[in-house]
């Protein structure tokens, strides 16, 4: 049996669309629901089901479902309508072998290298097991450093002499994580930027299918160490929906507390790094030293600073005593004073201001089309915050503002993050006061089996909307499919666009703007062997369009 409908209590609707009319259906839906949350693919019963999810920025989700046969699946690309779709389509193409007609980068496998054995089955198909994949990949594994570049296939609209393709990364002092960008430069100016991701791909979605619901929780937490709690929370929310479990009120408050502490630590980490890339090292040191206060609190509450493993299906794993809550209150007051002092000092420092104003500028329209989320989108004036539009945890009881700024550049995004940190402090103050009593720890950890069905959940991590989709098969201990859509993926589409027109020296700042987290993004991406040798000499004739940008 094919599609199972999503729980109707969400107020969400799923519409079944024949594959030929996907473009028209998306055109229609995009007039009211312009935010593409993601494209989820599931391989079930010799079909590949695609679920396109849209939001109207008010939390009224709508889904389109298309069912394709798993033999040579093919469908029209929608990236001409919504720019951000191209990266989701590439993900589906690599993981499931779906062909998207009219895709702007038809032959460039951004995620899967050209050297991936041609006839090899895509990794997320149910018909291919982990062992088979291992064997296959081991047989082609070499200890060769990957060629550090992206083949820019086809050619460009720029004359060959004037354009230099500069490889940026994968191991570059300005990148904290290994990623690669091919920058097309005209003199100092960037005319084209193309990201190549997949260096830290660990195959988490496939791994999760081989673990029980509870084990997968620890796995998805390690998608990303910085928003680890949000990953585990979103997964738990989806699992609870699927399994029909509700946590107690105290558990909801404690989850919210840890999530907000995580936001503060992530934002101060980011603001510090901004200083670092802008050449303002003391700012970096100040913020990271203030942040240690928060890390101490997290360690006190959860027992670990980074991967906290605090949440579990049905509640949290340990209660927090009143004395500890008092400490939270006291420390957060201290942090507030410290953060206020630092943020006032740095945000009023003119050189920083000038270094970040009008750098990486983008418009709200571009941000929407790219599907950008989180502070990046709010920095362009769109108040899109899942905590407000689709409240979860204890957020319905708490008052806080959704921060927006007008500018759409590095400066306004930084301002959003600074102000959000204060809002998080405000939320934590309320939590400590309002937290209800009760037992937040479930009697037993969930070890049971799944129901038939599917569920999704969204939260608002520090970097923006995170989306999890879960599919369960009745009687199975393992999830049938776990799909993760992380915030960096659409934000990266935007950053690649925003780089255009700026100079090489601005690259670290602009890439930092979106607070990229490649470990998040890469879990879904297969990378086996090196890319083609780089330094493609740009051919003289002009065939394909080099541009990543699709006509909107």
């Amino acid at each position, binding site marked *: 049996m094919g599609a199972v409908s999503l729980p109707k209590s969400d107020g969400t609707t799923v519409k079944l669309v024949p594959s030929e009319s996907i473009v028209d259906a998306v055109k229609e839906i995009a007039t009211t629901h312009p935010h593409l949350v993601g494209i989820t693919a599931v391989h079930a019963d010799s079909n590949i089901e695609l679920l396109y999810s849209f939001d109207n920025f008010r939390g009224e989700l709508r889904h389109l479902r298309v069912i394709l046969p798993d033999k040579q699946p093919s469908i029209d690309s929608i990236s001409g309508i919504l720019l951000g779709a191209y990266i989701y389509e590439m993900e589906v193409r690599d993981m499931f072998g779906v062909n998207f007609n009219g895709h702007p980068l038809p032959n460039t496998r951004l995620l899967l290298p050209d050297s991936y054995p041609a006839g090899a089955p895509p990794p997320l198909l149910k018909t291919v097991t*982990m062992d088979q994949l291992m064997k296959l990949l081991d047989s082609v594994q070499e200890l060769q450093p990957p060629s550090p570049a992206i083949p820019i296939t086809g050619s460009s609209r720029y004359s060959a002499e004037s354009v230099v393709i500069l490889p940026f990364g994968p191991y570059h002092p300005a990148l904290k994580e290994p990623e690669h960008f091919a920058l097309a430069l005209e003199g100092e100016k960037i005319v084209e930027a193309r990201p190549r991701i997949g260096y830290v791909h660990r195959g988490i979605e496939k791994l999760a299918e081989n673990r029980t619901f509870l084990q997968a929780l620890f796995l998805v937490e390690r998608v990303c160490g910085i928003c680890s709690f949000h990953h585990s929370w979103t997964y738990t929310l989806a699992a609870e929906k699927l399994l029909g479990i509700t946590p107690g009120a105290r558990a909801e408050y404690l989850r919210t507390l840890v999530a907000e502490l995580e936001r503060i630590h992530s934002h101060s980490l980011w603001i510090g790094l901004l200083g670092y890339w802008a050449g303002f090292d003391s700012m970096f040191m100040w913020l990271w030293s203030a942040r240690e206060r928060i890390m101490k609190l997290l360690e006190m509450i959860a027992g670990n600073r980074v991967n906290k493993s605090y949440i579990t299906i049905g509640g949290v794993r340990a209660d927090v005593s009143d004395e500890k809550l008092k400490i939270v209150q006291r420390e957060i007051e201290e942090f507030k004073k410290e953060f206020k002092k630092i943020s006032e000092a740095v945000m009023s420092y003119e050189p920083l201001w000038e270094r970040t104003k009008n750098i990486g500028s983008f418009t709200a329209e571009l941000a929407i089309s790219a599907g950008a989320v989180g502070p990046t989108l709010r920095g362009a004036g769109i108040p899109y915050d899942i905590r407000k539009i689709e409240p979860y945890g204890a957020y319905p009881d708490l008052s806080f503002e959704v921060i927006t700024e007008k500018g759409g550049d590095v400066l306004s995004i930084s301002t959003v993050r600074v102000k959000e940190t204060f809002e998080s402090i405000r939320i934590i103050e309320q939590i400590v006061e309002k937290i209800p009593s009760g037992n937040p720890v479930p009697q037993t950890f969930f070890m049971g089996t799944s129901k038939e069905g599917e569920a999704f959940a969204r939260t608002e991590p520090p970097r923006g909307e995170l989306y999890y989709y879960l599919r369960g098969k009745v009687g199975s201990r393992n999830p049938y499919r776990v799909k993760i859509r992380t915030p960096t993926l659409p934000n990266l589409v935007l950053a690649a666009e925003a780089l255009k027109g700026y100079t090489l020296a601005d690259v670290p700042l602009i890439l930092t703007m979106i607070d990229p987290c490649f470990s998040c993004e890469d879990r879904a991406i297969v990378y086996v062997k090196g890319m083609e040798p780089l330094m493609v000499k740009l051919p003289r004739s002009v065939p394909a369009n080099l541009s990543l940008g699709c006509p909107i």
Partner: protein
Amino acid sequence: MEESNSIKLIRKSPWLFHFNSGGCNGCDIEVVAALTPKYDVERLGAVLTASPKHADILIITGPVTRQTAGSLKMIYEQMADPKIAIAIGTCACSGGVFRGGYNVLGGAEKVIKNVICIPGCPPNPRQIFAALKKLYENKLEEEKNDGGSKLTKE
């Protein structure tokens, strides 16, 4: 390249090169935290360098993925002797939670020999500091002979 079993620092100011071989960022931010004021490994003369050619110690975080294995080998080879490799975090030690994934080779020892392992997910900056301090004082060897070491691994 000669392989020796004794892990000794020659210089008193060990420079570090940080290599993320596929980690979740958790270990990475703890390494950075160890560099910043509260822990401050710069007290041991350690600084983060931008080039492996300047570094004495290679810090590896995360499981080695198929894609990064080659770069890891290349970067290690580029470092001048004597050199030390430290795997920070369970992933870099053994592949950790991601072991068995189709794109994960395993720990750093799949690619380089004689790696010092600091397990933890992620290890606390205090542990990172302690390990570097032991290295700095050349105490690592003694520890091992006590039989109680968590740090060395050959």
